[in-house]
């Protein structure tokens, strides 16, 4: 059974000029121990999906329909207090910017201890020992001496390691990592990604990795979901999606990764921009930018259709058109 099962999730923002549908019929699952990548342009709804799962949508955003089932239980309709017991304990989160996710006036050890004692029954001494253990595990040198150091005494990469320890210390079964490496430089990114993979494997934690970096996805994930304008346009095992993308949008994304081998005069890109939420075109949301657009795409909206091991929301995959 899947650890997390999101089905037909819609998130809406009521505004003065009508209701905006920011997530439209999102369905996906995450298996225990699996790493699911979520990619897409800015504003595609990646982070919003994460917020919806942990029940921290910024008002006026709200779950309009659909279900989120975690470990066999529905969690999208829980009250704040019940949700609080799940957050951190069962579902952890890692944010983009490690420089700001730590409380500047509390030592890292104390933050770890506070988090563990919120969810686990631990004496002060055990909690301290485990805080040191966690800092060692995420690769902080001289952890026992630095356990009560303050965030400003750590570098950016070290701080992100602390943030990862913080997300994992209550041993959640699912971690939502929202662009965990965006604020770091490239060499540190690789370390952090390796670290997250190792920890996920060691502790059997599932990860939902939100990013717009296809390189990170290709290296880290088991499966990947590609989002566009609030919908999932393609989802499947990472090798298949990267090697033989089914949806023209995914193809465009892959095509726009700069390569060191081929020298081109101009970087390839997908022409146009993602539509705003109040101006999503009729039919397939991608049709104005699609190079393979057909008449049908301007009328009807394709659902996710199976294409081998992956699923893609495109009429091209149907009936062996490709």
């Amino acid at each position: 059974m899947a650890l997390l099962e999101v089905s037909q999730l819609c998130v809406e923002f009521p505004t003065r000029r009508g209701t905006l549908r920011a997530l439209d019929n999102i369905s996906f699952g995450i298996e225990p121990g699996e790493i699911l990548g979520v990619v897409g342009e800015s504003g595609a709804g990646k982070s919003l999906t994460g917020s919806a799962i942990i029940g921290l949508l910024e008002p006026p955003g709200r779950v309009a329909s659909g279900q989120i089932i975690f470990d066999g239980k529905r969690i999208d309709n829980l009250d704040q207090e019940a949700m609080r017991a799940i957050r951190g304990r069962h579902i952890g989160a890692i944010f983009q910017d490690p420089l700001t996710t730590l409380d500047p006036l509390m030592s890292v050890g104390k933050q770890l201890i506070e988090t563990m004692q919120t969810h686990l029954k631990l004496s002060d001494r055990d909690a301290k020992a485990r805080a040191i253990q966690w800092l060692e595990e995420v690769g902080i040198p001289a952890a026992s001496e630095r356990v009560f150091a303050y965030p400003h005494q750590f570098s950016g990469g070290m701080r992100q390691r602390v943030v990862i320890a913080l997300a994992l210390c209550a041993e959640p079964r699912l971690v939502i990592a929202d662009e965990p490496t965006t604020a770091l430089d490239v060499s540190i990114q690789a370390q952090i990604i390796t670290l997250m993979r190792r920890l996920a494997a060691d502790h059997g934690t599932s990860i939902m990795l939100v990013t717009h970096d296809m390189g990170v996805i290709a290296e880290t994930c088991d499966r990947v979901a590609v989002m566009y304008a609030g919908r999932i346009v393609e989802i499947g095992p990472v090798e298949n999606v990267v090697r033989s993308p089914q949806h023209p949008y995914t193809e465009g994304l892959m095509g726009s990764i700069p390569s060191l081998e081929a020298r081109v005069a101009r970087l390839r890109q997908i022409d146009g921009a993602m539509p705003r939420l109040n101006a999503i075109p009729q039919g397939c949301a991608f049709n104005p930018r699609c190079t393979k657009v057909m008449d049908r795409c301007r009328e009807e909206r394709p659902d996710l259709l199976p294409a081998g091991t992956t699923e893609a929301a495109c009429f091209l995959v149907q009936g062996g058109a490709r």
Partner: protein
Amino acid sequence: MSALSRFLDSDFVYSFRRSPVAVVSAVVVLIIVLCAVFAPLVSPHDPFDLASISLLDSLKPPVFLPDGDWSFPLGSDDQGRDVFSSILYGTRISMIVAALAIGFSLVVGITVGLVAGYAGGAVDAVLMRIVDVQLTFPAILIALLVDGVVRAVLPPAAQDALQLDVIVFAIGISRWPQFARTVRGSTMIERGRDYVMAARVIGISSPRIMVSHILPNVLGPVLVIATLNLGLAVLDEATLSFLGVGLPPTQPSLGTLIRFGNNFLFSGEWWITIFPGLTLAAIVLSINLLGDWLRDALNPRLR
């Protein structure tokens, strides 16, 4: 020990040492506080000990005037009490009242500010309107009003016993809105920060986030206002006592001393009122200058 050496090495201490005004004010405040705390040891007489007071010593001038002598360094009042000793004891009472009043203000103001800033919405609107309404009246007026109402409500027996508590309450309740406003503003800023979001994601409860994460991060500006208000609270107490609604003559504060001395100002015995007045001015000025320095030191943009 390392915490102490780290503190002595901090920018804060450095900026303190570099500011002559801050050092002088701090020394003045320190001397006055020490004298007030150790008043029984420092003062040559005990102004409360009726047995040691003699009417024969009344209205003696200070030591530097022709008739003065060292047994009454700053002269004596009409009852023969030593003005210097009265000032020490008076300062003690004034400081206690001011410190307790500001402490009370801080507790109320910080609580209201944190809750309003963190909860937002209707809670915030209601609490802040209360603050706004109170801020339309001068603080001293509120203190007078509260003092009057509390005294009218209390039975006469309780009045005598609770005189100090009443004035602390009156001054404290007149000064909390400033703290509430400041804390609320800073809280709203901190609430939007990632670390608060992260704490919520971790599943830490709202009261705990407010107390252990937001509060330490908003204390800086509060500290500055608290210091400045401490000076004002000393002044409030003096004003109330001067008007005769503060502390009774049996527990003379600086304000009470000034009020009694005032009667002798034009008959030539100016020292009875001038010296307590100067002490009051020195206290309020030093605390204010210290508060100004603290504001600059805690605000990196002003350096």
